[in-house]
């Protein structure tokens, strides 16, 4: 055997051993994991089972080792996610982007909605906006999470101009239009909140009368 052939044989043997002791490659893993996801959920209507199916943006935001903010995205992926997010944004029929802060106050501390037990979705008149699960908002509220940044004095710092209302509305409607793969759910785009509900949350965040913006 020529030395070159030796090399080929040895390399092949080495690869075979590595294959035995090593991990499956990314493609094989994706295939088997997706099969497992497909088989894991059997209870409930097809529309509920389909919640485990990803859209393109979710798929791009699922990179192994990645965290919120999508640091590993390519520029093309980033642009595609932002475009899809921008295209998703719809506004209240009234055109009012800042609604009633008192209604908003009820929504921001409400962490319920759309959870499934035994194939049945919890029955509620509306979904909560989930905000305080992750954000400190009302300075007097101790029971607030810290997965997202504090929003205390949000409006006191920014005012309640039309531009601030629009930015805040869009950011809640689809956070990925501003920060692709952010941990924050795309609350409007997924239909979890209605445009009117989002406008109420905007009011709670920006209006001067809201507890968020009153100096403690």
């Amino acid at each position: 055997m020529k030395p070159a052939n030796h090399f080929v044989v040895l390399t092949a043997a080495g690869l075979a051993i590595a294959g035995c002791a090593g991990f499956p490659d990314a493609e094989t893993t994706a295939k088997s994991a997706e099969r497992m996801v497909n088989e894991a959920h059997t209870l409930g209507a097809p529309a509920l089972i389909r919640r485990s199916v990803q859209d393109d943006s979710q798929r791009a935001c699922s990179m192994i080792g990645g965290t919120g903010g999508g640091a590993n995205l390519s520029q093309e992926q980033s642009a595609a996610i932002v475009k899809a997010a921008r295209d998703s944004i719809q506004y209240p029929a009234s055109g009012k982007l800042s609604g009633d802060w008192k209604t908003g106050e009820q929504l921001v501390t409400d962490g319920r909605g759309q959870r499934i037990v035994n194939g049945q979705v919890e029955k509620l008149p509306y979904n909560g906006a989930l905000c305080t699960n992750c954000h400190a908002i009302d300075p007097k509220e101790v029971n607030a999470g810290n997965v997202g940044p504090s929003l205390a004095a949000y409006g006191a710092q920014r005012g309640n101009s039309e531009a601030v209302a629009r930015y805040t509305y869009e950011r809640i409607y689809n956070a990925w239009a501003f920060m692709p793969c952010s941990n924050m759910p795309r609350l409007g785009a997924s239909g979890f909140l209605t445009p009117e509900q989002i406008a109420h949350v905007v009011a709670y965040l920006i209006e001067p009368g809201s507890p968020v913006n009153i100096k403690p």
Partner: protein
Amino acid sequence: MKFSNRTAVVCAVAMALTMAGGTAAAQGKADDGLALGRKMLAEDNPGDLWVERGQRLFTERRGPKNASLEKCDLGMGPGVVKGAFAQLPRYFTDTDRVQDLESRLLTCMVELQGFKREEIVRNRFGTLDRDSDMEALVSYIGAASNGLRMNVRLTHAKEREMYKAGEYAFYRRSGPLDFACVTCHGESGKRIRLQELPNMTKAEEMREVIATGWPAYRGTHSTVRTMQHRLYDCFWQMRQPDLGFASDLSVALTTYLNHSANGGEIKLPGVRR
């Protein structure tokens, strides 16, 4: 007698949790009060009652085949419970599958004792009215590894497939809220409301999470919950469809998470909110 014991325990736990919560609110901090509550509970862990019951269920002849579980091979040989928790999930030749503790017990209860699979699955999680045999058995087998260290080995190709699938699933975002496990469990020092979230990408935090609970006595549930329940609860909160009990997806996640806890000293059952 059993009932009054249980009631006393539930009351003691409720008190401890209330005191813990009060301290937390007073300080405006989550961890100190909860740590105190856990310490109080750990000194007299109600989960010990589940361990005792689990031992009885393991050794008693039960089911249509009137058999005990003393021929159940949890990976250490028939009937050997010591060290079993430390090395699970693992591959089993007879089922040709990677199985976690619950799915392996399910196999044993069906094959050795003749119980109906659907029946075990229906009663997998205890309620206030009905104890779960699964929760008791898992408590017993978990506690039998106390003092040992987590050691999931990934020697079989199917174990490595499960591990990688679990890692993939950990980062896989889906559903109306775009959540993956990593959304809440990718950074240290984070909370949902006052509930602290372990960073599951960090081995030191995982060693604590896995090796000292699940199984864990949950004060708010008044029962011991298992890892299968912990994952089910996360999927529920993530707005995912019900996570199938003993599904490959659940075993894959447990393989990934338990392996990342290797080296953690086992002290089970744990105590959790």
